């Protein structure tokens, strides 16, 4: 089903759009949707999940080396793209896992169709607007310096620091594309879809919110309010992690995901 293009990563063409895709492990299917910082920082979490599950981890259109078709501007577009991908892979009982921006995509998928889904797990999710029009729910990361951003996005800012001068050039381009693609989809309205909140009641599969407790880009109160809008959803925090708990605590993250997938 997947078309191998090189030794490191598979690729897949969905309705004419080619994306990179990692496929690892055996077991029940997990579709992992990466955060706004790209697929590379998710490597350890993907490996941890793959010990007990069949993980499919695409690189979103516009991120990494994945194409982005002209006219694809919104997370709504991305959600239809992934519904097409699920149809194409013809998988069922999928545990859908998204982190941060990826959790927003996951929510947009789940409000449209849960026909192929078994469980939904959203970590440090963005995607809705809670505060009044003059109150930011989500820090304006594009107005921050890199040290300021690392300080609010991570429990340990060193976890997010990358030395671009020593990274392989392709990885630096991927980081630049991640920033650009995040702006493409989340610039305005900023990291949310005004319509999403009123649709969340449609998510009728078991749902777990995970929350890196040190996230100061978007705080726990936001996560709890978001969680309360999905019928029956549970909320758990992950200690010593910020906005990207899969990156700062990959083993714990994977353990929580797998436990929820298995109904524990």
């Amino acid at each position, binding site marked *: 089903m997947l078309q191998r293009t090189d030794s490191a990563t598979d690729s897949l063409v969905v309705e004419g759009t080619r994306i990179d895709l990692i496929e690892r492990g055996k077991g029940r299917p997990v579709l992992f949707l990466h955060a706004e910082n790209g697929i590379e920082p998710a490597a350890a979490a993907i490996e941890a999940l793959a010990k007990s599950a069949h993980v499919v981890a695409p690189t979103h259109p516009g991120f990494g080396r994945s194409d982005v078709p002209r006219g694809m501007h919104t997370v709504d577009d991305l959600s239809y793209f992934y519904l097409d991908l699920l149809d194409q892979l013809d998988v069922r009982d999928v545990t859908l896992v998204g982190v941060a921006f990826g959790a927003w995509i996951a929510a947009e998928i789940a409000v449209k169709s849960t026909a192929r889904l078994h469980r939904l797990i959203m970590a440090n999710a963005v995607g809705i607007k809670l505060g009044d029009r003059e109150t930011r729910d989500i820090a304006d990361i594009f107005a921050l310096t890199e040290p300021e951003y690392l300080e609010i996005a991570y429990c340990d800012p060193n976890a997010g620091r990358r030395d671009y001068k020593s990274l392989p*050039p392709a990885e630096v381009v991927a980081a630049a594309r991640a*920033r650009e693609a995040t702006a493409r989809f989340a610039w305005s309205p900023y990291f949310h879809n005004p319509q999403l909140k009123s649709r969340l009641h449609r998510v009728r599969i078991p749902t777990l919110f995970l929350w890196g407790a040190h996230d100061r880009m978007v705080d726990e109160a936001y996560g709890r309010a978001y969680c309360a809008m999905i019928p029956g959803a549970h909320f758990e925090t992950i200690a010593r992690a910020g906005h990207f708990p899969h990156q700062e605590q990959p083993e714990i993250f994977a353990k929580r995901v797998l436990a929820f997938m298995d109904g524990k």
Partner: protein
Amino acid sequence: MRVYQFSEQPYYPTWNDHSGSLRVILPNRKCDPRVAADLFHRYYDEYQACDDIGLDIMLNEHHQSATCMSSAVVVGLSVLARATKKARLLVLGYPIGHRPDPLRVAEELATVDVISRGRLDMGFIKGIPYEIAASNRNPVELMERFWEAHDFILKAMTTHDGTFNWEGEYFHYRQVNIWPRPWQEPHPPVWSTTGSTTQARVLGERGYVMATLGTGYGTRKIYDAYRKSYLAKFGRAPTADRFAYLGLVAVAKDKEEARKRGHLIAGYLRTSSIVHLPFRNPPGYLPAEDNARLMRGETPPRSFTKDGRGINMHAATVEDLIAAGILFCGTPDEIYAQIVDFCDHCGGMGNLLMMGHGGELTHAQTIDNLTLFASDVLPRLKAYRQPDAEAAAAVVAA
């Protein structure tokens, strides 16, 4: 050669009173409206003086900035369309990729063209990175949006037999029929700016007037990219009037006074990049490959002296700015020689966008700068014979 006088209309009284950013986030409490009013009237007086002494006029806009108070350039255009009689009015430009409503742009510009009786030159620009924060326009696909706005504006200006429909990727209208229509046929001349050879090729294919800023003796490369695509498209060489260059100009009877003025005008360069870091390069404004190079710490100079030495125009000395063709500075004879040398080097340049006021240059100094230029340099530049356009293009074609 045409010469357009240009000032950024700065609010310089705050230039030493900021916390690392003269743009975007500098609180407007630091702007005293009474001082701003005096400055605006002074700047408009200087522009009106240009009308009397044979200089054309260029206006621009920036947003949320003490470096440039002209945040809604249509206001300045409107004032000057009525208050001047002869000067061409170049707006360079309208950041049309940022505007929510290109119909309004077409109406504003057509009205200015009519009131000025056909003196508008219509510059459409991408806008510098710092404008993104003010417009909140998505920097990704800014240029796609720009070109759709451009197509729409020209269609609105050239459709005269009733309404038309527009359901594009970014803009939607169903009954478009602007009143008034522009004075100039088929529409005011289109200008644009760039610093890249890629965009120069695009502008060459359209035959628009292309301006560069701060490119110094690296300008030729950009002009040649334009020449190549113009030649391929139109089968002839672009004449010098297709090229424009923004240079700082400080002229005085004696050399020392000119240097002093040059230093003051270059205050524009020293302040223009004082911007809080995150606003300097919004995501998607540059291609990812270019951003990756910046992330790796590769920041090649963009201003070059005649002998190929890169300089940082934001920190350079007056002498280096002169060597790089960014500042034309000296007595009338020296200035004339510098400008002509630059034109020859570029293979022809027919529109000097002259920053004859900048920074803290006083009103009296500015008026003296402009009048001396108009009396002792401009006539010679008008008589100057540009390099042969076909010869310049033939070099590129070969």
